[in-house]
């Protein structure tokens, strides 16, 4: 995983542009961070606002203040539930949702994201699941999630939510045969080649070490 070689972390100056520049180069929509005018609309618009430590606008200020470790190790951007409230209300039209996702993805790539952050793991699981066959295998995805913390925890979780699972089953909305052979695309191989290439290009473009 790419430690940002050309960014001089040692001399990361408070309120200097170093970290901002890093974000602009490596984070999706990162070039927007500098445009925030600290009005706070995003902070007030987030349904999960009460649950996180730093609001988006505050994270943007922390980036400008050069607080690299605090930002990247933060749990806050993982709280984004992609509701886009902040995006449509931002008076500066910042794509805040995308920036939050981008920061999270970057933190993960650098291995700085909180290890046990459930959304991080869920996100990885999802991507892995849907790219394996080109389509989501909802049953495997669900089970995979239950058993994320090991067999025992998995069965506990499955047991507590058994009614839901059962209900879904009865409602023909959970298909047991997905375990053996679920939905999938015909051209799996093509999709895999295509995604491999995309990862390479992205790494090249954003200056990451090859994935």
């Amino acid at each position, binding site marked *: 995983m790419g430690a940002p070689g050309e960014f001089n972390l040692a001399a990361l100056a408070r309120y200097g542009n170093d970290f901002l520049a890093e974000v602009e180069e490596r984070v999706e929509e990162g070039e927007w961070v500098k445009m925030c005018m600290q009005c706070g609309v995003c902070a007030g618009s987030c349904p999960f606002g009460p649950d996180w430590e730093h609001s988006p606008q505050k994270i943007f200020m922390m980036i400008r203040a050069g607080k690299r470790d605090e930002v990247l190790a933060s749990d806050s951007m993982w709280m984004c*539930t992609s509701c886009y409230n902040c995006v449509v209300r931002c008076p500066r039209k910042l794509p805040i949702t995308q920036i939050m996702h981008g920061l999270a993805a970057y933190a993960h790539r650098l291995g700085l994201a909180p290890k046990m952050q*459930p959304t991080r793991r869920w996100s*990885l699981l999802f991507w892995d699941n849907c790219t394996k066959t080109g389509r989501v295998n909802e049953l495997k995805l669900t089970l995979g999630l239950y058993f994320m913390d090991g067999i025992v925890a998995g069965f506990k979780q499955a047991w507590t939510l058994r009614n839901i699972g059962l*209900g879904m089953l009865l409602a023909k909305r959970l298909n047991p045969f997905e375990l053996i052979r679920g939905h999938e695309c015909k051209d799996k191989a093509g999709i895999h080649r295509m995604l491999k290439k*995309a990862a390479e290009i*992205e790494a090249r473009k954003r200056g990451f070490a090859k994935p």
Partner: protein
Amino acid sequence: MAKKEYAFYPGCSSQLRGSASNYLTSVNTMCETLDVKMTPIPDWNCCGASISYAGAGELSRHVMNARNFALSETHLPGQDVVATCAACWLGAKETKQKLDASSQLMAETNEALKEAGLQYQGRTEVRHMVEVLIEDIGYEGMAQPVVKPLEGVKIAGYVGCQTNRPFGIAGESFENPLYLDKLVETLGAEPLTKYEQKVTCCGGALAFSEPEKSQKQIKDIVESAYDHGADVIVTPCPLCQANVEIYQSEINRRHGTKLDMPVVYYSQLMAVAYGATPKAAGLDGHIIKPKKLQEIAVKVVPVDLDQRTRRPRGENH
């Protein structure tokens, strides 16, 4: 030859035997009545959804969507790609916009697509089924086939997030969209226009990873529907539908509440109003049964109706 034809992008959840398969069922029934032909994009793939960000890079996400565009361009030339799932629509539309805006991103995308032997020309238009209904069919067009007005059914229109933001439906407000209410009215039911949770996020993306947080959202959404006297909640989004419906029991367990509010798709309302059988309207696909709708669905169609509407629905499923 159908009145209208579209390249259909059902998405993972609303494919056959998916968690929202009843959405698909009802959409098919609805489209049949409206004489709209939906041809699935051959070998379509998952959009990646917004939640996949940590694993996916920016480009990978765009490439996934572009693959679907490329396929529809090749196999269903000239047809708009129509999604029924909010996440699919949003992901695809975002990719569409990004690629339109950046020739570099377009080139990179095609560089990747080449690996799968595909190329995207940039001609695809991405739309939501709701847009098709409002813009191509129109409210009058939707009203025309109604044979069973949903009289006396009080319906809370729950739009949720991703069908509404950041793109939304043209001419509708992000804070107070009215199209579900208009649609409900069109079908002869009673819209609860003052329902203030219509755009509240259900926390769907975090339903698994942060259950108690998302269930708090769901609780508000459902309780407010009760406050306004709703019989049923209607939504255009499979994720909203699933979350808001299936976690009610869990919420009851945690909070000792007695939530039992059915959550259905607009397409199901339409199918029922158009005289479809409960099965054809996908009413059997619910954990919380939409009783009022079922009652209407099983009612016999009055005979004094024209040819089209007398034909029983749902046989071809």
